[in-house]
Structures are given as C-alpha cells and as structure tokens.
C-alpha cells in the first residue's frame, strides 16, 4: 500500500529508553518521525489499558521500551513490563490486530544508536504489516468516497 505512513507509539521509560532517544537526538541520528514517544517513569508503569487504547485510537504499532535486564531503576519494572507485553500480545491475537504489532525492547540510556535503529526497524516492520485492521476499514472507505 503506497503512501501508508504507520503510526507507532513508543512508551519509553524515563531512565533508559527516553534518555537513549534523547541521546539519538544529540548525536544527530535520524529516526523516522512515525515513532511518537510517550515518556513514562518506568516501562512497568505502562498498563495493559494504555497499550490497548493506543491501538483503539488508531496506532498501527506500539513499542514498550525499558531498561536492560537488571538495570531497572525500580528493580523489576522492566521484567513486569515484559510479562505484560507477552500477555497483551496474546490478547491482540485474539482481537485480530496481531501480536507482531506490539513489541518490547530493552536498551540502556547511552544507546542512542540502538534507539534509532529500533525505531527504523519497527517502523519498517509495521509498514510491511500495513495499517492496523481497524484503520484499514477507515482507509478503504475514504479511498472509495474519494474516487
């Protein structure tokens, strides 16, 4: 599908992932503008409803980005987030949106390059998957009325 620009919401923990994103900025590493960053105090703060609502409001993909294992500022927040993401992936399969639209990534605060690469990789992955099934309906209707 041409001209499809995916919307990817990235929940980034303040201590690592968000700082990595900031580092990518200071290193002038470009990453796709498709990734919209939401700063959270810890990836473990991201609740199931946040992810599901993101999809309900039209996100094509969601990323939860936290600290590397053992490095969470709040001890086990990133572990809880990983488990929660795994549970949500099953739910997304049930709904029909697809588990591959949700991903958990880990990085440290200094990994500006990893953030940029991850943002690029996930944007391309979602671009290949196409618009979220709930948007596909809206998009095709808009196309039909435009003809």
């Amino acid at each position, binding site marked *: 599908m041409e001209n499809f620009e995916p919307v990817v919401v990235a929940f980034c923990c303040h201590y690592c992932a968000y700082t990595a994103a900031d580092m990518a900025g200071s290193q002038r590493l470009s990453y796709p503008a498709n990734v919209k960053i939401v700063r959270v105090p810890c990836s473990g703060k991201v609740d199931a409803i946040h992810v*599901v609502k993101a999809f309900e409001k039209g996100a094509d993909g969601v990323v939860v980005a936290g600290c590397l294992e053992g490095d969470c500022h709040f001890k086990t927040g990133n572990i809880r987030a990983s488990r929660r993401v795994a549970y949500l992936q099953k*739910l997304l399969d*049930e709904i029909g949106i697809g588990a591959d639209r949700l991903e958990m990534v880990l990085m440290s605060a200094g990994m500006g390059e990893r953030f940029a690469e991850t943002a690029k990789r996930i944007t391309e992955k979602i671009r290949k998957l196409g618009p979220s099934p709930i948007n596909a*309906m809206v998009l095709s209707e808009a196309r039909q009325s435009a003809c």
Partner: protein
Amino acid sequence: MITAERKPLDELVEYIRPFDRILLVGCNECVTVCAAGGRKEVGLLAAALNMTFLKSGKSLQIKELTLERQCDPEYVEELAAHIDGVDAVLSMACGCGVQEVARRFKNTPVFPAVNTKFMGASERPGIWAERCQGCGDCLLGRTGGICPIARCSKRLMNGPCGGSTNGKCEISVEVDCAWQLIWDRLKALGLEDRYEEIMPAKDWRTAGGGGPRKIIREDLAE
C-alpha cells in the same frame, strides 16, 4: 474469594453480535482481586470488543460500569438508570452476580463474560488455588487447617491413598497431596494424635447434595 477467568473473546463476540448498545458491568470484589472482571478488565474488554467489531465495520456502543458487588440487590439497582439505553448486558461478575442482574432486569438479555471457577486464595501474586468447596460442615479444625474436601483429589477423609508420592498427588506432580500437608501440619502443631481419630462418613446434604442451599437469618430477614 470466588475466582474466575474471562471467556474467550470469540464466545463473547457471538453473544453480543446481534446488539448495538451494550452495558459492560464489572464487579469490585472477587473478580477484581483475581484480575478477571474489575474496573481495569472492563476497560480492556470494552476496547477489545470495540476493535473486534470495528474490523468488520460495525460500531458498537459500550457503556462501562463497575459496581461494588453484583450479588446484592442494592448495588444491582444502580444499573436501572442505564438499562433503558442498552440492548444487552455483558456482566464480568461471577455466576452469582450475573444471575442477580438477570433477575432484576428481566427484559434485557444478560450474558456472562467470565467463567466462574472455584473458591480459592492467592498462593502468590497472580496465582490462585482452590481451597474451599463449600461443604457446609467445616472440618478444618480436625485437619490442621487444610481441607481434604477441596484439596484432596479423591476427597478422602482418613488419610492419603496409595497414590501419594513424595508429597504429591498421583494425578499430577503439580498437585500437593492434601493428606501429606495435613500430616505435616498436625506434626508441626504436636497434634499427631488427631490423625488417628477416624472421621465418619460425611453427610453431603449440607454440601449441595440436598439441593440448592439457602441461609435465612430470622433476625435479619425482611
């Protein structure tokens, strides 16, 4: 508490497919504790159902509400203000709650969103295990606080069977042998003699064998 688990999404979709306006009701008690039907789960299920129907182009109107309990008429009455604006009710409460809502609102179809499982307790966060089967004649005082009715696969009353191996039940290594637990507990309490007391055949009438049960408190009944 009473534990439950959400029904598979496609089953719920089939229940509400004919309707356009749904009232999704949660319960703030047991199903909240076991993360099956509380306010959070109501929000999640509403979004999940909305997206499922959006995929096929249908826009579902879902009203979300969580009552303190659904097993008391005073709380169920709170739904009266909303019932006229909906075509069906999907209740995330245990079977008791679903039935009370259905009893009060006879003209609106009421569907269960969870499968009610068992009366149990939290072993660890996120893990709930069966503890009580409501036999109506509690014998926990004689078994050191461990129930052989709920926790013994065969509901034996006088010690383990030959299948008890290394403290586990023969049906699965994940199930503890209740009588092993009882013996260990009685020993720790210094009450081994109690193990020798033979328990007579149980009267199962109080356990539901005599039909649906009811409690009437003369001093409280109106």
